[in-house]
């Protein structure tokens, strides 16, 4: 296990580069994201630990980060001022390349499309809208998707279906959107509480998991949403982020306000909880699986540290 520290910053999101498996990006905020600035950290895992490659400051807190799928130098973050920032790790000039400002409240989620023909980013905001951006086509969004009746916490592209993304909201619904028509295709009242995170199964295009303030994870088959495939209980506080494994169809990881990271296999109906990691002293907000190193998980927390298993 390796750790990285970010004094006076609170970790909100961490992602491993799809190009360089030893490279991490961590979106952090000063003062828990309530006031002050944000810092994007680009880090490298070495034999002995984790070292800082570069850090970028922003004028407001940073709440999410996504690596480009087409260029190893490029990242996008979402900020408390409602803007998205595009960063280039190989550019010596300070500041982002580009700032995309349309959302009127915090951008809590950014995701770069996994579809090879696309170069799209989806953002989810507390202004209740999601926006789709093509970074190669200037600073204006392609479309704005409305429908949620509460803040959006999470927006994730389907890894299988082009132009399709899911969103998780404070209105308790999971929605699935079709960008080509700009419409919501499914609205599922998945929890009786705010849903803070969702993720798509990498091996079954119909399966999504949601994580909510009610401390539960629910795995859904979108062909039959009357009840979940599985309901995973164990966390004692809200679930802040959930990710499906890139290597196992039924394995997922979750992190929580209960300070833990948990690993689950929902095909093990008797005992789906596989492991509980209790290495933090504050909310754990960021979580990611390594796409090239099986079983490696990275997290980051409000306790000013992050961990790589």
């Amino acid at each position, binding site marked *: 296990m390796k750790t990285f520290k970010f004094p*006076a910053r609170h970790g909100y999101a961490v992602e491993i580069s*799809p*190009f*360089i498996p030893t490279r991490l990006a961590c979106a952090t905020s000063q*003062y*828990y994201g*309530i*006031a*002050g*600035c944000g810092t994007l950290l680009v880090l490298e895992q070495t034999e002995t630990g984790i070292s800082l490659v570069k850090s970028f*400051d*922003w*004028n407001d807190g940073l709440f999410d980060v996504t690596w480009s*799928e*087409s*260029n*190893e*130098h*490029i990242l996008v973050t979402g900020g408390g001022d409602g803007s998205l920032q*595009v960063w*280039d790790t190989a*550019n010596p*000039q*300070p*500041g*982002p*390349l*580009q*700032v995309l400002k349309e959302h009127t409240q915090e951008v809590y989620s950014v995701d770069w499309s*996994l579809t*090879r023909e696309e170069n799209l980013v989806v953002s989810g905001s507390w202004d209740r809208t999601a926006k789709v951006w093509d970074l190669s086509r200037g600073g204006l969004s392609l479309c704005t998707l409305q429908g949620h*009746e509460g803040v959006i916490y999470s927006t994730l592209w389907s*890894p*299988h*279906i*082009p132009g399709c993304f899911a969103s998780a909201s404070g*209105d*308790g*619904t999971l929605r699935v959107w*079709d960008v080509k028509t700009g419409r919501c*295709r*499914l*609205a*599922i*009242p998945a929890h*009786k509480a705010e849903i803070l995170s969702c993720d798509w199964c990498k*091996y079954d*295009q*119909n399966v999504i998991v949601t994580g909510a303030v009610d401390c539960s994870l629910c795995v859904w088959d*979108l*062909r039959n949403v009357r009840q979940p495939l599985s309901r995973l209980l164990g966390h004692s506080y809200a679930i802040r982020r959930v990710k499906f494994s*890139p*290597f196992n169809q039924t394995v997922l990881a979750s992190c929580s306000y209960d300070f833990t990271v948990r690993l689950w296999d929902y095909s093990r109906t008797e005992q789906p909880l596989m492991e509980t990691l209790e290495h933090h*002293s*504050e909310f754990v907000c960021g979580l990611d699986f390594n*796409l*090239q190193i*099986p079983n490696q998980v990275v997290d980051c927390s*409000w*306790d000013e540290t992050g961990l790589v298993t």
Partner: protein
Amino acid sequence: CMCKFILQCSLTQLFRLVQAGEEVPGLSKLDIKPNSQTPTPSQMERRPKPWENSKTHITLEFLVCSSSAWWQCLCPRDLCWWSFRSSGMWGAG
């Protein structure tokens, strides 16, 4: 636990300061602007994902064709039922 108590104290103080419009000690006020430069060209090939092996590719092509089917086969009655549930369950706003 004590650390949560400490966090709650400092968060409470922070909220009070911010709400009162007072100065928060140590708070950074930055004025960073975009540099409008072009991205550094990529030197690396995109790697396939673990789920993108050749066998899955063939399956996925078939599934992509039928994927629109699950959107369309969800009948209007079901969609209305879910909309009704979501509006009724936790009231307005």
